[in-house]
């Protein structure tokens, strides 16, 4: 097997934190692979999986569209390449997103998850928080969810599995090869989410 390559979309946001978490995941799984920042369109062809980091969804979305990266990534994902979006990343993957302040978000970005997302659903930074989450998919021990001006999933269509909830609100989902989380697994100091994703990438390259 060739060594796998996992890309981190490197336009804006906590890119290095995702690089570190994914590298740690590879080490712990004892998998030979590379984790690379992906910023330019010609870098998309060589990767086996992609993570969209946290940051500002409007910024990342606008610049990704400008560079022509969105269509290429969509094509790869529809052919089975695993994709994970955290916080801003999940907003960009959703088919519909809205905000309590300004209503419907104008631009649709990647359009690959059959979900509706409410941006800043818990409120502004004063209402950002950490909480222990129960996520059976990655193990029985609780996972530290770091929610920073986080979105929630308000609606899911057929084929979307709920991975995690907090207070009955959906905060992580999976639809086929695509994962979305409201919180930031890359900040949790716990690599289980990135390991799970890495495993999807390994299965995809087999």
């Amino acid at each position, binding site marked *: 097997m060739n060594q796998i390559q996992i890309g981190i979309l*490197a*336009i*804006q*946001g*906590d*890119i*290095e*934190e995702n690089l*570190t*978490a994914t590298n740690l995941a590879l080490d712990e799984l004892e998998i030979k692979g590379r984790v690379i920042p992906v*910023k*330019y369109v010609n870098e998309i062809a060589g990767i086996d999986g992609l993570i969209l980091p*946290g*940051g*500002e969804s*409007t*910024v990342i979305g*606008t*610049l990704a569209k*400008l560079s022509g990266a969105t269509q290429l990534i969509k094509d790869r994902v529809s052919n089975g390449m695993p994709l994970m979006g955290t*916080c*801003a990343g999940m907003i960009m993957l959703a088919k519909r997103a809205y*905000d309590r*302040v*300004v209503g419907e*978000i104008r631009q649709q970005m990647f359009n690959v998850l059959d979900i509706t997302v409410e*941006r*800043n659903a*818990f409120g*502004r*930074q*004063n*209402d*950002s*928080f*950490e*909480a*222990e989450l129960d996520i059976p998919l990655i193990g029985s021990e609780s996972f530290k969810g*770091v*929610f*920073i*001006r986080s979105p929630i999933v308000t609606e899911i269509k057929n084929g979307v599995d709920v991975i995690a909830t*907090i*207070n009955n609100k959906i905060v992580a989902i999976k639809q086929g090869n695509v994962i979305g989380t409201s919180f*930031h697994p890359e*900040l949790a*100091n716990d690599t289980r989410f990135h390991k799970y994703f890495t495993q999807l990438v390994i299965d995809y390259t087999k």
Partner: protein
Amino acid sequence: MISLISTEIQPRGIKLEKLETVPVRKGTTLVKRGFAHMHKHGVVMDVTNVEQAQIAEDAGAVAVMVLDKLPFDVRKAGGVARTASIKVIEDIRDHITIPIMAKCRIGHIYEAKILEVSGIDMIDESEVLTPADEERFIWKWDFTLPFVNGARNLGEALRRMEEGSSMIRTKGEPGTGNVAEAVKHIRLVNNEIRKIKSIHESGDIQELIKISRELKVSYAYVEETAKLGRLPLVNFAAGGISTPADAAFLMNLGCDGIFVGSGIFKADDPVERAKAVVIATTYHDEPKQVMEAQKMVDEKKSILGMDTNNLDLKMQERGSNA
């Protein structure tokens, strides 16, 4: 990974609450510093009204910073510069979705408390405004909301961190349209870090302790910086950035992102310039892309700028001894 080094074991800014039945922790070091980390590789733009805030958001700003006057106008007007009108802050808050920061005066605990409950996302304890306390800065561990502070050397940066700041920006010399001071400050910080990193690698703890005394900061912060080989907080460039090339230059010096003050809305082409600075910040490692961004602005429309050697007011010196 976020450095979690902390001065207080149980800071007053942490709130243990319940989201209906689920226990949650607000204002933790991770949540505050994590907020700063989400801005990396982005541009924060100074704005004074809703119109400017919308231009900034449409251009791809990662956040806006609300002021009463842009630094250039603060410099021109003289007098005492204070925090912006709450009505303006609320108005901007209700029209955009990206995070909002606002400035308070150095040491002015109550301007900060007001800003904390006004529904903004981060407080800038800033030397652009007139300091309210010459002796000490705000003890930021008491706040749930994260703070950003200016620094022009490693000592200032680590002292602000020890007081509970969650993000650092170089001071530069605000409102001058001249990037030279920001460049000087980031180079100075980089050199100081390089020095303590190599001392740490040599195992000379005694020398590191001596340096922490010179920097007037607890040893743990110096050790953490030396170990990481970088500031333990997100570090943005600020002060005098006026063109896409300025932004790309500072990103190349190792800054995590950019604050633009007067450079955009004191220029005669703010809409194009705002977009161009965002593109140059993201693609700073590719000169061709930065050239394309630079092409979007007209040098005849840049802020004229001034020589930083002959200024009546050096904002960067405010609070530098505290």
